[in-house]
């Protein structure tokens, strides 16, 4: 048996933070882990190529289930496309918060693509709803039996609200898929945790494969200090964020800081969908960290006092302010608009709290580019920046890694917690993953498949066998003390494989059941011996000799049948017909006494000692 893993996409040479979609075959079951889309493309390439799996035929027949780890679009963006447009009717598993928030994001995504960009052939709102009907919610640490053999179990993963790691188990084989996870707790979520489940394969993300982050407190302090200083100076702070996840984290951070320090400068949060999502954040308190769980009775941390919704006109207001705006990579939308307005003033500041994909403005300014070429195609931009095609970036650009992904140390920590036998890295940049892989391979096997590549992991599955009670009891009486799980013990028995069941029974019973009669196997052997005595004397001499050599065995002399018995081995003597001095010894032993028999034959070949006591 083997596990079969592959990640599927159209471009076979790169794995990146763009999208996740992994297919796992384990014990004959096919499971799809996450169904993400790529943000960087606007054509067919953004969705996984599902024809890769099925060739032709329906997905439902091929897949046993689909598991979504969390609500980020690069993990669930292609879900309606897959279930409704490609066609999949099987169960889709996700946690409760994911189920609640995922449709909001999908709907938002749909609106942008269809309503704003005017694309056709895209999934509709109804499709999102239909897709959500196929979702089966999961609870943490709840073992869900998908079918008789396949079971899945979710663990807390940090990262975003409702993010989960999933253990997939078929028989004794298991795979853990981490999705995105975070080993450092933050202001609103706890740390990922998994028990020592020792899976055969751990599929881990590796976004920060080469980073070991400083203590998060340093980062927080720096962040707050920078914001505070800028605000005190009268500058404006722009923080581009993705609508959900980091945004809430930073909001709580700033909110508590404002509260503690009694600050008055306004904080704004742009985008409408956040309000809906925030509502769910308030509800799923059990998924947050210790502090929020403990204090929500007095005050729900997600009910912000200082953070107000943003209106586009506020961007021109004088005086200090802090604005959270989407999207996080400054590639479009409100964050880009605000950025353009504020970029010219060196008092202002933009803080990039997370990862930026190559090609986005965020990536450019982080790499120190101070002059940006504007595409200026959208109407809004035309209105404001008709004249200038170039934008001078004067404001301060800061980068703070607030991404809630595990760093190298965190990945190691998870490995230590789960103790997997094999490791598979996905969801990262190839060069960096190579580096981490090199490190992990010192400890055990590590794979890093390219897109579309299949990795096969061989396992040593346990084969359960029924054992008859009688046989066990017999062994017990022979063996004595308690069984020690660490020391293997051998036992004799017969393995019967019949009608998909394995049974271990005693040989006699097996014979009886199968209606076979017992066959005996005997070895015989002739040994020539020079001995000038009569046959009877020779036999006696042999008897004496064997008796002196084999102390612990029962040796019998049977003169009437001219033979010596050692245990069950028979030694007979007869004179050679040609030479009476040459005696021919006939040894015969059964298969069970093979050891003793062969010993005797070699012993007797050496001849008898001249003096016998």
């Amino acid at each position: 048996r083997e596990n079969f893993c592959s990640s599927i996409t159209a471009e076979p040479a790169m794995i990146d933070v763009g999208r996740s979609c992994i297919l796992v075959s384990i014990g004959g079951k096919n499971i799809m882990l996450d169904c993400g889309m790529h943000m960087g493309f606007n054509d067919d390439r953004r969705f996984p190529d599902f024809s890769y799996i099925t060739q032709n035929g329906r997905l439902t027949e091929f897949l046993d289930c689909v598991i979504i780890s969390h609500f980020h679009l690069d993990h669930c963006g292609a879900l309606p496309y897959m279930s409704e447009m490609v066609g999949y009717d099987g169960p889709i598993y996700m946690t409760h918060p994911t189920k609640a928030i995922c449709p909001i994001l999908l709907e938002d995504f749909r609106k942008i693509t269809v309503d704003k960009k005017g694309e056709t052939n895209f999934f509709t709102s109804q499709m999102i709803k239909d897709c959500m009907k196929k979702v089966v919610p999961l609870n943490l640490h709840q073992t869900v039996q998908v079918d008789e053999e396949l079971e899945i179990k979710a663990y807390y993963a940090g990262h975003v609200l409702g993010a989960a790691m999933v253990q997939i188990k078929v028989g004794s084989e298991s795979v853990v898929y981490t999705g995105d996870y975070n080993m450092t707790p933050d202001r609103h979520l706890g740390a990922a945790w998994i028990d020592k489940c020792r899976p055969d394969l751990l599929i881990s993300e590796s976004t920060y494969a080469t980073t070991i982050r400083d203590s998060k407190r340093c980062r927080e302090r720096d962040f707050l200090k920078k914001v505070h200083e800028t605000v005190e100076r009268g500058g404006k702070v722009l923080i581009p964020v993705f609508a959900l996840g980091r945004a809430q984290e930073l909001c709580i951070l700033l909110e508590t800081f404002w509260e503690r320090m009694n600050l008055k400068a306004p904080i704004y949060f742009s985008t409408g969908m956040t309000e809906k999502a925030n509502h769910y954040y308030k509800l799923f308190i059990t998924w947050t960290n210790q502090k929020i769980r403990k204090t929500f009775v007095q005050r729900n941390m997600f009910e912000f006092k200082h953070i107000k919704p943003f209106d586009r006109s506020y961007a021109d207001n004088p005086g200090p302010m802090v604005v959270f705006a989407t999207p996080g990579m400054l590639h479009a939308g409100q964050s880009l608009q605000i950025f353009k307005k504020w970029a010219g003033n060196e008092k202002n500041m933009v803080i990039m709290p997370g990862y930026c994909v190559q090609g986005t403005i965020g990536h450019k300014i982080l790499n120190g580019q101070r002059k940006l070429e504007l595409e200026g195609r959208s109407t809004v931009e035309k209105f404001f920046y008709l004249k200038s095609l170039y934008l001078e970036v004067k404001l301060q650009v800061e980068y703070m890694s607030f991404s809630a992904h595990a760093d190298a140390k965190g990945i190691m920590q998870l490995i230590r917690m789960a103790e997997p036998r094999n490791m598979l890295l996905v969801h990262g940049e190839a060069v960096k993953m190579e580096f981490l892989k090199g490190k992990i391979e010192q400890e055990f096997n590590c794979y890093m498949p390219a897109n579309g590549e299949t990795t096969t992991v061989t396992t040593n599955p346990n084969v359960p066998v029924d054992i008859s009670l009688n046989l066990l009891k017999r062994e017990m009486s022979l063996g004595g003390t308690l069984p020690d799980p660490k020391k293997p013990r051998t036992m004799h028995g017969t393995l019967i494989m019949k009608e998909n069941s394995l049974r271990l029974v005693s040989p006699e019973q097996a014979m009886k059941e199968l209606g076979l009669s017992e066959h005996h196997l005997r070895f015989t052997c002739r040994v020539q011996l020079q001995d000038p005595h009569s046959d009877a004397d020779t036999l006696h001499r042999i008897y004496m000799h064997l008796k002196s050599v084999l102390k612990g065995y029962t040796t019998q002399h049977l003169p009437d049948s001219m033979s010596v018995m050692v245990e069950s081995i028979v030694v007979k003597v007869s004179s050679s017909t040609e030479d009476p001095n040459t005696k021919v010894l006939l040894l015969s032993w059964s298969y069970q006494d093979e050891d003793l028999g062969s010993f005797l034959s070699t012993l007797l070949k050496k001849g008898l000692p001249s003096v016998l006591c």
Partner: protein
Amino acid sequence: MAAHLKKRVYEEYSKVIQIPPEEAPQKKLRLSKPSKSAALHIDLCKASGSTEALQYLLQFARKSVEADSVEGVIRILLEHYYKETDNSVRLKIVSLLGLLSKTKGFSPDCIVDDVKNTTTTQRLIEMACKHLADTYFGVRNKCLEVLGHLGTVDSPLSRDGEAHPSLSGLRDVQSVISDYFGDQEPRVRTAAIKAMLQLHERGMKINQIIYEQACRLLSDDYEQVRSAAVQMVWVLSQLYPESIVPIPSSNEEVRLVDDSFGKISHMVNDGSWMVRVQAAKTLGSMLQVSHYFLEQTLDKKLMSDLRRKRTAHERAKELYASGEFSSGRKWADDAPKERLDTNAVNLIASGACGAFVHGLEDEMYEVRIAAVEALSLLAQSSPSFAEKCLDFLVDMFNDEIEEVRLQSIHVLREISTNIILREDQLDTVLAVLEDKSRDIREALHELICYTNVSNKECVQLALLELLKNLNKYPTDRNSVWKCLKFLGSRHPTLVLPLVPELLSTHPYFDTPEPDMDDPAYIAVLVLVFNAAQACPTMSSLFSDHTFRHYAYLRDSLSHLVPALRLAGRGVELVGSAAGPGSVESAQVFLQDSLNRTNTIHSLEAPGSQDLLDFTIRDLQRLGELQTELAGAADFCATYLRCQLLLMKALQEKFWNMAVPLCLKQNVMATAAARQILEETYKLEFVYSGLERRQVATVHHVRLQARALQLVLTARTRKGLEPLVSSCDKFLQEVDSFQRQFLTELPHFQESFVGKLLELMPRLSSCKTVELIKILQSTLRQSSMLPLTLPQQLHRATATIIEPTGESDNPLKFTTGLVVALDIDATLEHVQDPQSRVKVQVLYPDGQAHVITPKPGDFRKPGPDRHRLITQVYLSHSAWTDPGHVEVSLLLAYSSSTSSKPSWADSTDSLPPPEGAIEGTIPFSKSVKVLIMPKPARR
């Protein structure tokens, strides 16, 4: 111990005996008549059969036994126990033993010793060993527990090894227990470790062999095993810190304590938070660990296995410097650079690396607090580590849980003697000054009082931030001033170059005189004056008005502004504080004055009154001058005043006059007696650090006062009935005094009580009138008791900081509703303030409300110091005009807490005579608050 004994006994006999359900209920054993043991002995010897003996025992169980005879009874019972053959009788005896061992004032050790001497222990151990192979885990657990409690390492089980070859043979308890470290059942593994720890606790020497096994258990699947293993490894590391252990997979060796430190550090990353807490706590107590291991705990990046670090320390440093792993703080610095020798880098077993970094950012605040505490302990023992951990502690100031923030500020204060803050560190520390929480700010002020800073910019920065704080939170005034006082006196040379700027003086021009009432200006002056104390040249930089302000502040805020020597100036400002030897000389003076008064033997001696008067005056003045001795001086003065009052009340002439002729005198004496009584309560309860001797002296004075009262009542009233009862009461008091201060009695030979006690047999039988006569004469003959001073004597004081009583705006509220009044007070030298300190609100109509603050309202900013920040609720019916309520703090006392009878609740004896006396002593100045209850509008 009793439970322990019982358990052992049951373990041995439970096999044969069904415990009777009607077993004697747990009884309180009380005193009655002595010599129980003898009677019991006779009874039991008389008993012919087992049933009869059982009867006697049952009867006996219904009675009670006094503490001192318990031991005898137990001896008898044990004796019979061994003689007895019948099981039920033996059971009864054992259960009786169990009950008896619970008697108060009796230590059951002797029973245990007795039982131990027998073969029971040996048998139990044998039994435990035999059942260790049981298939049920519970049995194995208990067996291990028994071994842990009873086994001895020195006398191995080999003694009966020959007799019972089936037993574990020639092996000691430790190796038997350690066999079960590898048991298949996690609970048994836990029990085995616990048993081993128990052995250690009993003082057995644990062998080092098990170290490796214990370390292996650190990676057990079960959290309770890991948790216990952490303890085990810790114990071993404390036992054999210096022994060298080899490192697997290399030929290097490290000290055991370092090795275990690395391993326990690793547990800070454990999956279970209980284990993490345990590990973090444990780290704090491993003080012998080497520096380089310690410092690794603060660096996440040193991924190379710690075992390599010892020899390849340099290489590891390069690895760190080359930035192999990026920090995530800078964009794009995580591109992989040159590939290093990966053999040197072992990711999973990364040892102590970053243990504290992880601990400090743990999800559970319990872990974080444990980590902060551990940091504190380690930093206190190692200055270089303190330096290193500073940044991390400062980061903790930003924690989401206030408790953690507060704790880390406290910790930083504790280690601040070891460190000098750099400017950037100070900057982050000071940022917290804007915090909304008062506790945090105050803790931070406290911290700044103790910190050393490196340069004058730091001082300036601190001052600036403190002024900002003052501006934002005016209520912090006192605390900020105090903070600046210390800042100034700690860094005089750093303040010196700042002075012109701070005081805004100009070499040529006169600058306008700042407003003297501005708290910020006062703050600056406090800083400057305190710096000037150690830096005499500074005063030359002062302008004229500064001197005037100095004079003013020296008077109004004398606790913040030190005395300066400012010679050659218009103002005479030579401080009254003497040289450094002044405390000693004051001490000598105090002792001399006391000695002088001790020479007064008779109250009648001429001039003695004057002497007392003068001494009291001297002492009071001394208390004002020398704050260190204020408590002692006050105590003496009060005591002497009591004596003086007593002396005056007992003056010769008026006692000889007829009663009606000296009514006025009589009234005066009665008042004096009452006052003395009050003062004695103060003496007893307001001062901390009293020894038994002083308490006895105070009680003695109180007795005198009572006697005086008695005599006075006898003189005024004719009726004898009330007198009889009060006489009885007085005698009881004398009696209890005797019992209470039995050890001190020799010092009271010549005193009033001494004399009374001599006459005691006569007193208890004689008539009331006679008693009064005796009392009167004894009182007058008795000499004054010399007072000895204890080492440390402090007077409990309280200052109400808020409300200040200066506000003219009345607190307005609607009648029938309540208004909350914030109270902020500091308490010094108050023991157990949670139960003793009350707030009294006195309304103009004489109503007094006593409010007990919540225990959570008390904070402890320093030793012997408490801070009460609470709210009291005021309410009253409507007034026409605003009026003052007086708020003051009371110290509640009850004599029963201080004078415990030596034997417990006995109904036979007299009830403790003073048990009922409870009262309160005001110990703060009262503050007036203007309130105005308005009638409710309909």
